[in-house]
């Protein structure tokens, strides 16, 4: 979808996303290898197809973001216009050379989650598949939002960093979530942050992207993920990232 540029300063809301989710994405969203599942378990594929039919209409994708000028980097803190800051080694390393920081929250809304909870009581296989759809959808939404930020950066002859999220290695959830939600100033697309820094609706992602002429690019999200060592899905994500690079 063609979108306008990014206004600086105030919180912006992007809606009307047309997410393209397929059955393989729903299977991957459940932690499964889509190729192996297709070859071996037609029932699981059928359940994923059903989840796709029932769940797509329950998605309410929204992205709230704010583009803020980077004023300085001091002692592992990225100081932003308006007096806000992002802190920690990960963000300072990646946003150090940025002119702008884009803080964003993406969500698919609460309707699918309500359906997942209801469905899990009666049909756990379908409930899991709907949850897989939700995971796939919010990841696709965040990727689409970052694609939008990349396009704007290109138009302005800037480069953009890998998206960074609280919880990644070098960025504590508590600090990062509070900073992002603080910077969005209550305008986080209807996403709320609990005292434990849990986002509701659950299928939401918070992230930061740096824009600038000198920003460090390179690296995939998995490279910075705090669960990298134990993640069962890492190989799949890395294979997908590799395929995307080769396109």
């Amino acid at each position, binding site marked *: 979808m063609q979108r306008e540029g990014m206004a600086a300063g105030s919180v912006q809301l992007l809606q009307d996303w047309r997410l393209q989710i397929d059955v393989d994405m729903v299977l991957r969203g459940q932690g*499964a290898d889509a190729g192996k*599942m297709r070859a071996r378990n037609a029932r699981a594929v059928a359940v994923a197809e059903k989840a796709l039919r029932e769940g797509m209409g329950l998605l309410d994708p929204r992205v709230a973001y704010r583009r803020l000028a980077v004023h300085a980097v001091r002692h592992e803190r990225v100081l932003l216009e308006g007096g806000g800051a992002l802190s920690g080694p990960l963000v300072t390393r990646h946003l150090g050379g940025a002119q702008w920081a884009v803080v964003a929250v993406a969500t698919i809304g609460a309707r699918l989650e309500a359906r997942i909870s209801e469905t899990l009581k009666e049909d756990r296989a379908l409930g899991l598949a709907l949850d897989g759809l939700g995971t796939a959808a919010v990841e696709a939404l965040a990727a689409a939002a970052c694609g939008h930020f990349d396009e704007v950066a290109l138009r302005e002859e800037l480069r953009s960093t890998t998206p960074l999220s609280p919880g990644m290695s070098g960025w504590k959830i508590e600090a990062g979530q509070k900073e992002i939600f603080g910077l969005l100033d209550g305008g986080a697309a209807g996403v709320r942050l609990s*005292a434990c*820094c849990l986002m509701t609706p659950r299928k939401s992602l918070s992230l930061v992207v740096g824009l600038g002429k000198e920003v460090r690019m390179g690296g995939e999200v998995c490279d910075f993920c705090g669960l990298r060592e134990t993640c069962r899905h890492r190989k799949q994500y890395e294979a997908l990232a590799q395929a995307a690079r080769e396109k």
Partner: protein
Amino acid sequence: MHDDLYLALRQCIIDGDPEQAIELCQRALAAGIAALDAINEGLVPGLNHVGEQFAQGEMFLPDLVMAGEAMKAATAILEPAMQKAGARRETLGKVVLGTVQGDIHEIGKTLVGTMLSASGFEVHDLGVDVPFETFAVKARELNADVVGVSALLTTTMTGQKNVVEALERHGLRPRVKIVVGGAPVTRSWGEEIGADGYGEDALAAVALAKTLLGK
């Protein structure tokens, strides 16, 4: 003598096919197979196969859940026959399960419950955002053997320690075993807070619960 039927029962669990499981169980009973034999010779080997394949990365969460659902459908047919015959499947133990206060993640905890039930445990799922004290109160009320505590965030896994402390306050330790799990949870975290074990995934949780109860 009933090897083909046992193999078919095993396969319907591997395929995660509840309708086929119901039909085969009815056929097994009609053929004079004892319900307990149908479970132990047919269904359980199927579930074990799914577990092995999952551990090797050849099967995935949807396979586990579907196998668990097929197991549930099958045992619903076989249990009345067992009761009628005066037999009963050994319950491996009572488990109280929930996602800790402040955390509303549901799927992982539900899958653990599914696999525990399928493996022969009696599971009492308290749901999500469960107050620390409630784990202890329910464990005492139900005379539970194991309490399973799930947390999906580093900010909520600290609540697992509160659950351990609540069980200690209620005098339930060390008799009631505590198993912790969730994406950020590690073995060393479990040790640090005084839990009896850490389950990396649903099947590991089942194996751990069996080990802790000497089954």
